[in-house]
């Protein structure tokens, strides 16, 4: 079996989109898993043709198997190698790409194979332009991994390899207590920006979220820096890209880096005190005013 597409997996079996894209290219699809055996088993059930599981010591993080992943992929070199956007997945894809001397693309909107050419429509520079790139030779794609795929009818065989890990060892793992979220499945999302002055004020936004049946997300500085929410809640070019029915931006200025994450939203509402904020050129409904008055008023109007 000559593999057409390799899927590179770390410690999360969130590969639904990767399997869909790999399958759309035709030919055999294989996966190499650098996480726990249970992840390899889930991936083997996802509709791939074979799975290679990197058996490393228990205290080795997925990244310690990067060279083994590269060796595995290079032993049966594909046209395309795919991975999700989590940090561990990026490290494994980088190792595979370096070994294959592959082109690396991270903004693919579509991928197709035509003879010896792989054609990728790739969003660049904060999604302001779409480049169509023709590649001869191997391609490494970083994509949204998607959710855990539903079990396929049959399970692919799992081949186990024993890995001599690179010099990384897990000493300690701590959870931060933030609730995990899948923003992509939310119909309505409220985005919190720096216009919200204090962490206590999030309670007011939470009341609105309950009335709207919305998830709460944020701009990057609110998750990184202020640390008010988990990093899986920030929206933007390097964060989540969502397409909900309604996006309500609260105290967000509307910078490109943030707004590219919501261009797919059906309706966008913005609240900001600054009438000149970039936000208002990108909203369906704009409210220039104090969010501390407007947010409770909208909550009340919904009740």
């Amino acid at each position, binding site marked *: 079996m000559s593999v057409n597409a390799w899927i590179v997996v770390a410690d999360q079996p969130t590969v639904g989109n990767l399997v869909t894209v790999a399958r759309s290219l035709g030919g055999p699809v294989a996966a190499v898993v650098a996480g726990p055996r249970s992840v390899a088993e889930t991936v083997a059930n996802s509709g791939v043709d074979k799975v290679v599981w990197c058996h490393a010591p228990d205290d080795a993080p997925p990244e310690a198997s990067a060279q083994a992943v590269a060796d595995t992929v290079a032993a049966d070199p594909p046209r395309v190698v795919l991975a999700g956007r989590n940090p561990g997945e990026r490290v494994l894809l980088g190792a595979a790409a370096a070994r294959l001397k592959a*082109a690396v693309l991270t903004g693919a909107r579509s991928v197709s194979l035509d003879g010896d050419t792989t054609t990728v429509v790739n969003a660049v520079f904060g999604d302001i332009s779409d480049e169509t790139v023709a590649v001869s030779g191997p391609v490494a794609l970083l994509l949204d991994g998607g959710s855990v795929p539903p079990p396929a009818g049959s399970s692919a065989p799992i081949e186990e390899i024993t890995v001599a890990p690179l010099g990384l060892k897990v000493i300690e*793992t701590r959870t931060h207590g933030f609730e995990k979220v899948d923003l992509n499945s939310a119909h309505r999302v409220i985005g919190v920006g720096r216009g919200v002055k204090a962490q206590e004020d999030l309670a007011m936004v939470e009341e609105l979220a309950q009335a709207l049946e919305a998830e709460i997300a944020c701009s990057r500085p609110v998750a990184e820096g202020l640390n008010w929410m988990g990093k899986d809640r920030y929206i933007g070019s390097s964060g989540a890209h969502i397409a909900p029915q309604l996006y309500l931006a609260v105290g967000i200025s509307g910078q490109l880096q943030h707004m590219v994450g919501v261009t797919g939203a059906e309706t966008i509402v913005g609240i900001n005190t600054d009438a000149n904020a970039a936000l208002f050129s990108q909203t369906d409904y704009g409210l220039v005013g104090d969010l501390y008055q407007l947010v409770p008023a909208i909550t009340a109007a919904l009740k």
Partner: protein
Amino acid sequence: MRIVVAYKWTCDPEEATARADGTVDWSRAKPGLSTYDPVAMELARHLAEQAGAELIGVTVGGKGVGAPIASKAVLGRGLDRVVIVEDESLREAGRSELAAVLAEAIRHIGDVDLVITGDSSVDVAAKMVPTVLAGELGWPAVAEVTGVTGTGVQAGALRVERAIPGGVQVLEISGPAVLAASADAAVPRVPGMKELLAAAKKPVELLELAALKVPQQNAVMTVVDRARPERKARKGQLIDTADPAAAAAELVAALRAAGAL
């Protein structure tokens, strides 16, 4: 111990616009140090102070990355020296090629124990150059690094904290590695006049791309088309907020009518 900070001198797409044919107009943009690189430099500086390490900046790119203003901007942030590969052919280079050139520059420096980078570049934001670089060097890589402490890369001497979905993890590193800092790993100091004056006297080494013997890529990329992506047209309707309750009622009615609720 020898620590390299790989950085990028480039423009912010916030200052660029896409023309109707999809080509990008950078004429209003001014190049600078990529947004998250000062975080990497601060993180590296803390470690270098602890470990008594030498701190070297490395960048590769098109014309301009070796300009005195660029070198001074990074040397003012506490680096001991910089090594630069400036070649116009690298302006349009892909991630793999840039990583391969960086790897050769790091081999040229020699005896490097650790490479620290920013979270992502402000222009391309692929988050892949550090990981391909690690692959090229045959070293492990860790991304989303939030802290690093230690005195060297001998077994057990270096500890790295990194963000994982739902928490943080502490790793022990032995041997050389590439670390990509998270955007909030450190608060960068703003270089003062004294540091900028000292920066002007620090060594800048320019390397010729041709002299580095960078291995060929197996993939050749050609841009065959460009387009400005279609954006949903927005209504751009402003709701009068003089009376917050009335504004809220108007918004809720509009959203119900639009089927958004």
